[in-house]
């Protein structure tokens, strides 16, 4: 069946069709990009959670808000089913290399023999089995909160960092919490660790790992006058025995025990975190859809108008079909078919354009945009549902035009 007719059709009708297809394609491409990238990022975060080697997280309000991290670690380790409790302090610091220029990087202070068991299967391969950071317990330097013991002065450097500045084990670098060379302290590089691809930003990829007490002292988050939080950490990640990890009730019991120790901190299990992430993700998805529905509405209103005009300019042919007695469904069917074909074309082009756009961003964009684009997942079902929704709505748009076609006054149309 010739839908558009080769002859005697006005060029502007073809232009209208092209514009409608373009409008719908744009309207569809937007949710394709938003949903695939948004979904990919949250999925990635969820995977991170599922792959973590710990099951409970303690966090506090404010920057570096967990106080008395070493002591807290010991108290939590006293709980029977806990296998590891790993405080982590993350501070942006400057690294001074031979040239004297400061390189911003992210330093993580950890207790070595607590940190390793909390690594997930994907991460653990990236670190040396026993972190070569001196005292594995970090108790010697910490010395019951006096920090009077011997400091370690050892540090692990991430492989991108090592690569970028040709750093190797045995070399020494100077670290300072401010871009002030004179306050810098020298550390020995005792190991290199890998960074999973696409998980960290550029600065994040330039990461350092060092004993918690060393970082606390260097940055002033240890003890002494004017320190807002003594023996500070950002989070404390707790690993439990396998039996408890796979038993939600038991896990929750451990969580409650910990919560009783630290009533002012947030204590959540990873499944709670995952739930929260999922809730956040679905709120975002709803937001994306609401945003996209604006474009889709405009596109579909446009389609309805174009179909109306098409019926108007086809009134003679429609009138003849009706005059000959062709059933209403064949007349309605033609209008709906035209509408669905235009919308379907727009939807397919939109989906393809959206995918190409994301792929393009993943290849040629930089920074966070590229990372997010690389995480994008295209769920065939979602894309099909999106296309299906556009098609169903195009029936509505076509329906109004089809009704007009059936209401045409024959004596008028056939004058």
């Amino acid at each position: 069946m010739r839908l558009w007719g080769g002859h005697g059709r006005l060029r502007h009708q073809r232009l209208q069709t092209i514009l409608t297809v373009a409008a719908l394609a744009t309207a569809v491409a937007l949710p394709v990009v938003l949903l695939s990238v948004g979904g990919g990022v949250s999925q990635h975060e969820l995977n991170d959670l599922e792959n973590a080697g710990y099951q409970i997280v303690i966090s506090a309000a404010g920057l570096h808000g967990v106080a008395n991290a070493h002591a807290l670690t010991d108290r939590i380790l006293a709980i029977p089913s806990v296998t590891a409790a790993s405080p982590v302090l993350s501070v942006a610091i400057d690294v001074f290399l031979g040239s004297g220029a400061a390189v911003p990087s992210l330093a993580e202070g950890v207790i070595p023999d607590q940190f390793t068991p909390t690594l997930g299967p994907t991460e653990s391969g990236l670190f040396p089995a026993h972190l070569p950071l001196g005292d594995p317990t970090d108790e010697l330097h910490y010395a019951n909160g006096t920090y009077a013991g011997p400091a370690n002065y050892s540090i692990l450097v991430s492989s991108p960092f090592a690569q970028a500045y040709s750093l190797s084990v045995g070399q020494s670098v100077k670290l300072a919490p401010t871009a002030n060379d004179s306050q810098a302290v020298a550390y020995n590089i005792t190991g290199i660790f890998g960074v999973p691809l696409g998980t960290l930003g550029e600065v994040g990829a330039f990461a350092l790992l060092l004993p918690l007490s060393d970082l606390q002292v260097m940055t002033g988050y240890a003890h002494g006058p004017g320190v807002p939080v003594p023996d500070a950490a950002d989070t404390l990640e707790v690993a439990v025995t396998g039996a408890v990890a796979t038993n939600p009730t038991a896990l929750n019991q451990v969580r409650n025990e910990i919560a009783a120790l630290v009533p002012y901190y947030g204590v959540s299990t990873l499944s709670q975190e995952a739930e929260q992430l999922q809730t956040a993700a679905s709120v975002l998805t709803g937001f994306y859809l609401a945003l996209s529905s604006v474009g889709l509405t405009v596109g579909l209103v446009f389609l309805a108008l174009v179909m109306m005009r098409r019926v108007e300019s086809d009134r003679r042919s429609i009138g003849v079909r009706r005059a000959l007695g062709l059933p209403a469904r064949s007349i309605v069917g033609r209008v709906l078919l035209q509408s669905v074909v235009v919308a379907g074309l727009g939807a397919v082009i939109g989906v393809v354009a959206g995918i190409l756009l994301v792929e393009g961003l993943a290849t040629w964009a930089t920074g966070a945009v590229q990372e997010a684009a690389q995480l994008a997942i295209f769920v065939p079902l979602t894309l099909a549902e999106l296309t299906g929704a556009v098609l169903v709505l195009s029936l509505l748009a076509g329906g109004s035009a089809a009704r007009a076609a059936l209401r045409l006054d024959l004596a008028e149309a056939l004058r």
Partner: protein
Amino acid sequence: MTGGVVPTVELRGVERTYESGEADEVRALRGVDLSLPPGEVVSIEGPSGCGKTSLLNLLGLLDAPTRGEVRWDGRSVGGRTDRERARLRLERVGFIFQRFYLLPTLTARENVELPMRALGTPRADRQARASALLAEVGLAGRERAFPHQLSGGEEQRVAVARALANQPGLLLADEPTGELDSENTEAILALLGRVQEERKATLVLVTHNPAVAGRARRHLTMRDGRVVGDARGA
């Protein structure tokens, strides 16, 4: 194919007024009473604008009267639904429009097939019948031509073939030979006459051409929306 049964068509006190928007209305038919028994061959003559086409539209259920009643087989068609009337048009009426009204996106044969397709005639049957009808109106070999590739006379002959496609019982021909030379006029008249004979169909011919009117056994004359003459005889 059985073809449409020949209806008895009656008009009673029919008026048709067109509202052209801004208050000015055209009273195209101003009270027409008419009865067309099955098998009658009628010519309608009258000056341009006297309401001939309007009358045909009402007879063929294409339009509804502003006042009065159109009856088919004794039953008022005003009470029928759009769907029923469309079905009656499809099965029982053959319309040859004054301006042909071929569908520009369909070929000659597809135009002729269209009413048969709507009736569900199998593809092979309707193609064969469409080709045969086109041959009868002298268009063998032009089946694949689009209307814009045809002359006015050829278009008119396609329109005749289309009107005959579903073997209608009521044939309404609005100047069916207006674009034709005398030779083709004769051929078309012969075809219409033969079909009418065969099926005992009712044939209404609107025409200015005495040769066409001569085919009819009943002659109506119209003026200003009224039938002013109704004469019998060849």
